[in-house]
């Protein structure tokens, strides 16, 4: 099983969009009973585990045969605003994409790809664009263009010159 994320640093902003791909290889499609794909968070540490599934999709055998296993399958979902990834003394909050494969004989295998969810103010333009089907991956933060920043830069430069003259 292979899970790939669209970001190399595996860091996604809260409320942003997650796009990933999963693929099951080296197993014939006839042997597969079902596949479950989920985006979830769970706690690790001294306390008992808490787990919450944010995105869940189950593919049964007929759906898997219809999809075919040659190409990797996409995962699209919008992440919730909380909880953020956390590593503390007693508990850690871990986000991840989990793919669970059920084989005909009752056996199952699990693969998981962790990622970090951090806080960030969502960009309204990115949110509007991401509602389309051809959703791009996470939009980079939009910087203020130079011609808008120029007056404040000149003002700061003049203030600095005035202070040095005094």
């Amino acid at each position, binding site marked *: 099983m292979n899970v790939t994320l669209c970001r190399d640093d595996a860091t996604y902003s809260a*409320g942003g969009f997650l796009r990933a791909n999963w693929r099951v290889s080296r197993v014939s499609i006839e042997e597969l009973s079902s596949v479950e794909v989920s985006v979830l968070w769970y706690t690790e540490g001294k306390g008992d585990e808490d787990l919450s599934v944010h995105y869940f999709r189950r593919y049964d055998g007929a759906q898997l045969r219809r999809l075919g296993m040659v190409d990797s399958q996409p995962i699209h979902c919008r992440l919730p605003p909380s909880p953020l*990834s956390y590593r503390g003394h*007693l508990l850690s909050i871990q986000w991840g994409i989990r793919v669970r494969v059920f084989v005909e004989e009752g056996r199952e295998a699990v693969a998981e790809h962790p990622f970090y969810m951090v*806080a960030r*103010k969502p960009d309204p333009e990115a949110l509007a664009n991401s509602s389309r*089907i051809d959703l791009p991956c996470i939009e980079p933060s939009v910087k203020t263009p130079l011609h808008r920043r120029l007056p404040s830069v000149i003002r700061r430069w003049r203030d600095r010159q005035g202070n040095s003259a005094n």
Partner: protein
Amino acid sequence: MRRSRSVWQWRPWSKKLGRRLRTGPFRGVLGELAFYLGLIFAGVFIFTLVLVAQWMVPGIGIELPEEARVVLDSDLARGGGHHWGRWIVAIISVAAIGSGAFGLGYRLMHLGFSQERISAQKGRLSRWNAAAPPATGPDDESAADNVEGDPKASDEYPSLPAVPRGPALDESLGERLRYRLASVSTGRWAVFGAASLALIWNSVCVVLLAVAVSGWWYGRPRPVLAMLLVPFSGVAVWALKSFLRQVRQIAGVGPTVVEISDHPLEPGGAYQLFILQMGRMRLRTLRVVLVCEEESFFRQGTDVRSDQHVALSKELLAEGPVRVDPQTPWEQQLEFELPANVMHSFSATNNSVRWRLIVSGEARPWPSFCRSFPLVVHPPLMVPPNSPR
């Protein structure tokens, strides 16, 4: 000390050591199914017994063998011989059948389900999936909409899953600042306990004292009872002093009022705080501390234990000596900044991250006090941190 696996013998009353799960999940499922089946069988047997003894045998009027009559005349079938006894036994047996059937059905429905699938079916999916583009392929099971949070939590985010809500805090308006924080009441049940103990024990002592005095009065002294009254009276005095100490601790220390300029908090934000301490006392020191605590619950054998860890403690104010009069209560307004890279409030079944303000005072002759005011910290929506940690 290592234990040999061959020497160790399984004992049902022993504590689980080492791994939390000694057996596999399959045996657990079997045990659950056996329990629910046993519950159903017991309920059916008892209900049939009551049904036959109450209605069928008198109605049909057949002659039963002696063994069957012994069973039908038993206390269980007759409900102890009381008028409503049979009905009570019948209702209990029907309840056993119902709970067994419900548990068995629930367990069978989730047999072979993965942990994620059960969690998804519980409706814990966020409604944020609704904004995701429709995927090509199979039907989506993630259609469950579940709002885990407050619709008014934020303008941009309508819900904050796993973040505790604080509507009670937001609804309490302050006089100096915007919100008045509610304190966690502590010590009330201790007063009730001390009062009950003092009342019951002193009543018993008075009765025993009356018996002892009447014995001396009528010429039939009870020396053993009189000797026992000495330690009994000591315990009675101790219970009374404990009760008075609890009352003094609550009634003597006046109320503490804490108001805050904004709530819920956000990491990196600056907030004003107003503290008012009423009562009549002289405090050596008065401290206001902002605390972030991690709390975890875990099972150890058959016990549920908890552990706390202070992840952050920031002293906002330390002042002393402080004099508080009924006419001039002590008050202070201060400003503090919540650190930027801190965890937001988090609440799950077994783990939580809690924020609170602690106001504590060290006083004499009055006992020291410590009051806690819970806070809710939201995720830093406006500040993109560089690191997830």
